[in-house]
């Protein structure tokens, strides 16, 4: 049985009793439960897709003190899923945008803003400022491992939610009475092993589904009611509309929660995961493409090559659904994952790939390769160089189709 996370209690005035009347008439909450919520402190990591519903519902529920950690500004492309922000706050700090909306919904709460990326250096300070629960609403592996390890070290429950395209995961990692994230996922998959772009994106509603469930778990923990998701993980598939719960067991050999809390050391998580945690990161992963000296061309070079009928093949390695958004006329279209499959196949001795995916990529011609921004195209060139294509004949189109939209065709949609 759960022990309550804190024993504090706050007074409610008559207006608050009225505001929360649908809560207080339920015996599971009651006046006492609502007073506990008012005395509660919840820290949200991220005010994006998961953070939006979390912040809105926890503010509405009357959590007395809510902390927000984010350093980003609201981008127009966020609005497909980050419903706490709006057109009027595009370009503004996400913290200010979120806090204003929360306080409009419920002016009785305190919102504490941490306008900084969460790092190994500041995590203990931020997490140590009297938070009963931390809720992980981040979007990358390094920060997830950092949130987990810091929560284990400080003995704080971590309400975990994660999303990917149409799939979501939910759990509560609380090492004091169950497993931690690392018991389930001791280490992240190496970057590049699984292609990202082919699988990128997320259904905008999905973080709403998972985020509201995280908020539910937080309220349950704070009130000490129900069966928290400690030791369990819920797997959600929106396409199947299926929910399955699996058991998560504590690993006695877990490198983090299997040792004394005082001995837990917050490491360099970008190094650990081999990927950056945030846009402002100076970390650069040792991608296979980065070890190669890949030549580049500009979108203007591409334009003149296409117009002059130069003996150049321009290859678009984005995914088919991206071709529906925008294309540069005259390009050969082969998605990066297909090139990767072809490379793996040929390296495994299956030469059939030369007659399928690779048949439109001539070895004897100059290749200009582009994607959305220039990362996948560099990877594609690296793959091709491993299976006999001449690195001196391949050029990465700098800035990808986004640069084309900026510099050549201002009517082209950007995404």
């Amino acid at each position: 049985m759960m022990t309550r996370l804190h024993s504090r209690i706050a007074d409610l005035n008559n207006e608050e009793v009225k505001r929360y009347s649908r809560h207080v008439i339920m015996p599971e909450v009651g006046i006492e439960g609502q007073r506990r919520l008012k005395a509660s402190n919840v820290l949200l990591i991220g005010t994006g897709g998961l953070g939006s519903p979390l912040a809105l519902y926890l503010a509405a529920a009357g959590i007395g003190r809510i902390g927000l950690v984010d350093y980003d500004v609201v981008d127009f492309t966020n609005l497909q899923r980050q419903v706490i922000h709006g057109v009027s706050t595009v370009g503004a700090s996400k913290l200010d945008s979120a806090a204003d909306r929360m306080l409009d919904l419920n002016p009785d709460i305190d919102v504490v803003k941490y306008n900084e990326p969460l790092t190994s250096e500041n995590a203990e300070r931020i997490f140590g400022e009297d938070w009963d629960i931390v809720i992980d609403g981040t979007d990358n592996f390094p920060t997830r491992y950092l949130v987990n390890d810091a929560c284990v070290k400080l003995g704080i429950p971590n309400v975990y939610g994660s999303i990917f395209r149409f799939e979501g995961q939910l759990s509560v990692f609380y090492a004091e009475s169950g497993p931690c994230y690392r018991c389930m996922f001791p280490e992240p998959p190496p970057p590049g092993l699984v292609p990202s772009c082919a699988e990128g994106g997320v259904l905008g509603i999905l973080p709403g589904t998972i985020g509201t469930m995280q908020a539910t778990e937080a309220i349950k923990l704070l009130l000490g009611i129900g069966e928290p998701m400690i030791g369990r993980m819920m797997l959600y598939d929106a396409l199947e509309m299926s929910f399955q719960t699996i058991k998560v067991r504590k690993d006695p050999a877990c490198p983090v929660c299997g040792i004394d809390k005082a001995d837990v050391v917050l490491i360099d998580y970008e190094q650990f995961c081999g990927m950056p945690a945030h846009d402002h990161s100076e970390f650069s992963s040792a991608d296979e493409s980065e070890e190669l000296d890949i030549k580049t061309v500009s979108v203007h070079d591409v334009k003149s090559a296409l117009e002059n009928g130069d003996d150049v093949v321009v290859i678009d390695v984005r995914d088919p659904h991206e071709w529906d958004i925008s294309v540069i006329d005259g390009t050969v279209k082969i998605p990066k994952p297909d090139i990767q499959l072809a490379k793996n196949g040929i390296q495994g001795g299956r030469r059939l790939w030369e007659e399928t995916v690779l048949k439109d990529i001539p070895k004897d011609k100059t290749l200009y390769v582009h994607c959305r921004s220039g990362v996948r195209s560099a990877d594609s060139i690296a793959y091709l160089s491993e299976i006999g294509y001449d690195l001196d004949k391949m050029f990465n189109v700098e800035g990808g189709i986004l640069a084309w939209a900026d510099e050549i065709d201002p009517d082209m949609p950007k995404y």
Partner: protein
Amino acid sequence: MASIRIPTPLRAYTGGASNIDVVGETVGEALMNLVEAHPDLRVHLFNDDELRSFVNIFIDDEDIRFMQGLDTEIAASDSLRIIPSIAGGTVGWSLMEWK
């Protein structure tokens, strides 16, 4: 035949299939038959013959690490699941590419 549920990130290597029936007396045999039928999956699941440490295999709701691992016997009615490690909406597996 037991069935294996393939998570979204790995469906690129199964021709889009989300549920695949496999023959095998044990989890290891079933997975080997799976990667034989879909060779491009192998590198994502195995390091030589060892299951990669970030790959979680469940039989119904139980983690095979807490059973007999790849030697765990399976019945035809069992549902195997590969549980992916996922990080977030805009990034998928690598932050670099969508930012």
